[in-house]
């Protein structure tokens, strides 16, 4: 790392500034790193030889992914009966997994789009990997509705095309809205992610040491040369994509919730589902962002860019959205009682005392509602181990929540004669585990070949990126003196 001209490579005193002077604004990049240090550190992660841990991790995740693909192949070739689905539970792990994965994606878009519009500059350190996570999560999500229809070769029925009787799909159906919402979400996320990548691909192109790397990064960098006449349109396009993604991300999980809310099943037929689902999606998504970034930050020594303050802020978002979700849980019970509807009342009684009782007590109550409450305290928000523990709870809890909503609603509905339970088969379980393999394999490939932090965006938050910043000579004097940095 020859780029570190202003500060040594050692990383220390992460939280000192905030503790000593609570009102001082903590810099977003610590230890006075300069532009070339950022380039060096982030590109270095891509340019070196793949470390041994990467191969071990990739071997494991790709094997899990292969087994997941095998299960999908087995299910497609044999029939949807290899899953535990039956009457009355016709949607179980498949749709749970779909909602779980699509929800995870939402944090990436929230970070990249909504925090951009809100001028939250700390997003620059985490947006690239969060957006990548969005794409991979949506890929995992899209598998389930595709295959759960049974005859996947008929999946084109999802498209707005007339079938062989000339009948078109019903455009008033939430299931068709879902097709449009998810495919739009994926397409727009890809465009947004790639637009952000162009300047960084140009950096990798200009640093490439081999011909093949120069060619490949060069092709995808599209000939970017950092010209201000280009940046002018680039910034406008980026702003517009952020503005478009903001309502889009809110709409996607709202539409997913319509799949349930427009039915008449008790616990599904409720008007609070859209905001409740969106909050839950961001809640679960932030937990997954932290699950991936906390190890990546340690492995690639990115503590100066993804600082403890970033983790603190993400923990606050988890606390906020977790509180929304807890409020929604409580409100569901209140409305079930207040409505006077005996089926609703029974369904919620059944949720906490029925056959799936522990899903609620462990998943929804402990993992989702209680564990994030630790984040009221800065000591816990800034403790990596506590943060990781809570994130793991939330990851699990959000899956349980979707299972409770879906299977909890279906397994005991209006007629006691048609009650039944859902028991997953090994194919159910391994298909789900396999999607984790796909997700993590894709993420490992991403951090291996693409810059996991948006270099050009992180550089903007350095004080010397401001054209009205003190001249470089002055700056070096100030930095050398170790005093307050001129703004």
């Amino acid at each position: 790392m020859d780029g570190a001209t202003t500060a040594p490579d050692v990383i220390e005193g992460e939280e000192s500034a905030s503790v000593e002077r609570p009102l001082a604004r903590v810099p977003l990049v610590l230890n006075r790193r300069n532009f070339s240090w950022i380039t060096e550190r982030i590109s270095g992660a891509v340019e070196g030889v793949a470390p041994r841990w990467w191969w071990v991790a990739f071997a494991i995740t790709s094997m899990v992914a292969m087994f997941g693909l095998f299960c999908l192949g087995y299910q497609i070739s044999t029939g949807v009966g290899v899953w535990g689905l039956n009457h009355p539970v016709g949607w179980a792990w498949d749709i749970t997994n779909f909602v779980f994965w699509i929800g995870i994606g939402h944090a990436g878009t929230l970070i990249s789009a909504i925090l951009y519009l809100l001028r939250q500059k700390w997003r620059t350190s985490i947006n690239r990997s969060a957006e990548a996570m969005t794409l991979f999560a949506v890929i995992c999500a899209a598998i389930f509705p595709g295959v759960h229809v049974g005859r996947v070769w008929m999946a084109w029925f999802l498209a707005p095309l007339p079938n062989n009787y000339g009948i078109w799909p019903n455009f008033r159906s939430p299931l068709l809205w879902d097709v449009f919402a998810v495919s739009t979400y994926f397409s727009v996320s890809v465009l947004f992610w790639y637009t952000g990548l162009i300047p960084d691909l140009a950096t990798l192109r200009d640093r490439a040491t081999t011909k093949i790397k120069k060619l490949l990064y060069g092709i995808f960098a599209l000939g970017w040369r950092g010209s201000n006449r280009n940046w002018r349109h680039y910034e406008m396009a980026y702003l517009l994509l952020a503005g478009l993604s903001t309502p889009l991300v809110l709409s996607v999980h709202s539409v997913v919730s319509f799949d349930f809310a427009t039915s008449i099943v008790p616990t599904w037929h409720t008007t609070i589902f859209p905001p409740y689902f969106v909050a839950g999606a961001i809640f679960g998504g932030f937990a997954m962002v932290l699950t991936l970034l906390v190890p990546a930050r340690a492995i690639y020594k990115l503590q100066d860019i993804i600082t403890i303050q970033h983790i603190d802020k993400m923990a606050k978002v988890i606390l906020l959205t977790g509180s929304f979700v807890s409020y929604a849980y409580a409100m569901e019970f209140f409305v079930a009682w207040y409505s006077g509807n005996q089926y609703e009342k029974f369904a919620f009684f059944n949720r906490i005392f029925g056959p799936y009782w522990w899903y609620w007590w462990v998943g929804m109550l402990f993992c989702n509602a209680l564990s994030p409450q630790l984040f009221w305290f800065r000591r816990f928000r800034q403790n990596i181990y506590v943060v990781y523990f809570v994130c793991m709870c939330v990851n699990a809890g959000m899956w349980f929540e979707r299972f409770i909503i879906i299977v909890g609603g279906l397994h005991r509905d209006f007629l006691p004669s048609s009650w039944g339970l859902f028991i997953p088969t090994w194919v159910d379980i391994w298909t789900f585990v396999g999607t984790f393999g796909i997700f993590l394999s894709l993420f490992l490939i991403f951090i291996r070949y693409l810059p996991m932090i948006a270099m050009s965006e992180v550089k903007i938050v350095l004080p010397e990126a401001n054209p009205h910043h003190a001249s470089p000579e002055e700056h070096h004097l100030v930095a050398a003196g170790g005093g307050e940095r001129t703004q």
Partner: protein
Amino acid sequence: MRTPSGNKVYGMGAEFPSASALYEAAKRVRDAGFKRWDVHSPFPIHGMDAAMGLGKSWLSTFVLIGGITGLLTAVTLEFGPSWIIYPLVVHGKPVDWRTVPAFFPIMFELTVLFSAFTAFFSLLIMNGLPRWYHPVFNWHRFSRATNDGFFLIIEARDPRFTELEARELLEQSGGSHVTIIHED
């Protein structure tokens, strides 16, 4: 314009030590009346558009047109089949204006989809990308433009461009490594 050795000249470039130095230099080049010139930096510099005398980007206009196209596409796609080609009665609900809200989600999604694609492709077209070869890449120092270098390049096509004047201006503005850049 050609050098004595016969190479075609693309322009003259200079390197600047910081974003603020580049910003000040851009204002001087703008005030000197140059039209065909550009600055290159690893990140967009706040206020540089004004310093270069550039206005707001018109990309948003195309995106608006794209969004309207998306909305009209959705309206046609939904109402054509549902009301005209094969009216479908679902849940006994009427086939008329009273069910219009149920068509809104797809209208919204297609508006966003078309707008996003328009934004992306307008970005490429307005920037003349992809363009994998460009004369500025001939300058060996230029690879720092995507790392930590700040460059200002005046093109030889500019009517005011003379080698002497451009060199003097760039040096006076604080530029170093003032270099002639060849076309090929």
